[in-house]
């Protein structure tokens, strides 16, 4: 089976109004295996969100090749091979929670009966069955983000792209959501590419952590996290010495050149 994501020699430069072009990513190569959980971490401006947008075909590389399940990123998008969640939940305020989760199914003309069954299943999955008829403005930030995650899972994608989905949440909600996400991705067997700037978050969730550095954005190091399969990860892991060791390894990779990167959370 082909890689979930294969990125080969990708460079992305942005033309600025005047002045020189900004190099957001330079010569980045990375593969993500099916079912693998990979986090992209690095200080602000290291191009981690840009890289995610390239995989999602929301943006195109200046040079290099991005392929998703052996197809071009564009074809993978048109075939709906991935689900996506952003830092903002991005729910439609005039639709109920159920109708928001239903949105991708609705757009892709899934029959109504099937749609209803799937939405009920998804809301159960994220523990929001009682809020199906509520509107997004009646929910807390954490609940809205859970709706967005249910929506990302709606079409049983084998690849999930997440751009700091827990960035705006408080620490306690955040840890609970991480535990849920690890469980959900393990249960569905989906590969995940997860952008974050929290080291413990990256370590807790991932099989591998990709450490990036800014100006120009490039991959500094890929740290394997040997904490076992996702389905066995629970709250106890956060107290485990192996967890601390992995956090230290990622931190050292981030701070490799001695300078303290700006914008990385050490919590």
């Amino acid at each position, binding site marked *: 089976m082909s890689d979930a994501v294969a990125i080969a020699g990708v460079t992305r430069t942005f033309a600025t109004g005047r002045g020189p072009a900004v190099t957001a990513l330079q010569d980045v190569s990375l593969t993500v295996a099916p079912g693998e959980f990979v986090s992209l971490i690095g200080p602000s401006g290291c191009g981690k969100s840009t890289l995610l947008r390239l995989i999602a*075909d929301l943006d195109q590389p200046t040079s290099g090749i991005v392929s998703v399940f052996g197809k071009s990123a564009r074809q993978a998008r048109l075939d709906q091979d991935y689900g*996506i969640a*952003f830092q903002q939940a991005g729910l439609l*305020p005039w639709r109920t929670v159920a109708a928001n989760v239903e949105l991708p199914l609705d757009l892709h003309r899934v029959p109504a009966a099937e749609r209803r069954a799937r939405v009920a299943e998804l809301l159960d999955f994220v523990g929001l069955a009682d809020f199906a008829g509520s509107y997004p403005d009646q929910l807390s930030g954490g609940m809205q983000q859970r709706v967005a995650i249910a929506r990302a899972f709606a079409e049983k994608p084998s690849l999930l792209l997440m751009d700091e989905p827990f960035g705006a949440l408080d620490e306690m909600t955040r840890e609970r959501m991480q535990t849920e996400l690890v469980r959900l991705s393990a249960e569905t067997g989906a590969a995940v590419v997860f952008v974050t700037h929290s080291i413990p978050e990256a370590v807790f969730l991932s099989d591998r952590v990709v450490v990036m550095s800014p100006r120009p954005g490039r991959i500094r190091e890929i740290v394997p996290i040997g904490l076992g399969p996702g389905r066995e990860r629970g709250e106890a892991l956060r107290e485990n010495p192996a967890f601390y060791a992995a956090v230290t390894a990622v931190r050292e990779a981030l701070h490799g050149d001695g300078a303290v990167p700006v914008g990385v959370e050490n919590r």
Partner: protein
Amino acid sequence: MRARIASPLAVAWPPVALAVVAVAIWQGVVVLGKVPEFLLPAPGAILGDLLAHPGLIGSATLVTGLNGLVGLVVGAVVAVVLAAVAAAVRFFDRMSAPIVAAVAVVPIVSLAPVCYTMFGAASQQPRQYIAAVAAFAPVFLTTLRGLRQVRPVHRDLMTAYAASGWQATRTVTLPGALPYLFSGLNVASSLAVISALVTEYFGGPRDGLGSLITSAAATSNYATAWAYVFGAIVLGLVFYLVTLALEWFASRRA
């Protein structure tokens, strides 16, 4: 986020009390001060006139109201269609922007005498056209802003779902623009009524509120003139409140 909801009675009584006191003072000043009627008729006299021929005032209100309504609907429909075109076609937007800005600032009623010559003095059409032109600008501007207000995260989402242009318009752009359209309609409703009424001052059939206010004042029936003014106030309020309710309904979830 939700404000505490006071009982309707608690909200309503202070302004009602103020209005009653103001009318009482008005009556007192006019009666005790022996104010001549042409200067300011007493509220009692105005009320007497209202009660004496409610049918006349009612039918005049209907005539002006219908002109305002036709103008509002025509102006709003044209505005929404053109705003949709401007949102979709950059060139049309650049072409139309200065003209719409001009329409928005020109006092439209100044066209009234010209329109009566164009359409004939026996026609209601000049009144409706002028109300339509007055209603057009605010609806066009707010709708266009609403159509451009799509949040980047929603646009990304539609791209990620490989949604067609029409699907994106139907699911994200139009529902998002609706509250803007209705707030424009709310502003336009007052402009339409005012324009329909003021246009009557310049000629045309003598059947609307504006015509009858001028006739009554010209024939020294001051209380009658004020009774028609009262009709105009009611008409303006009805237009305002109906469109305000629509606006509230549309923006509940946006």
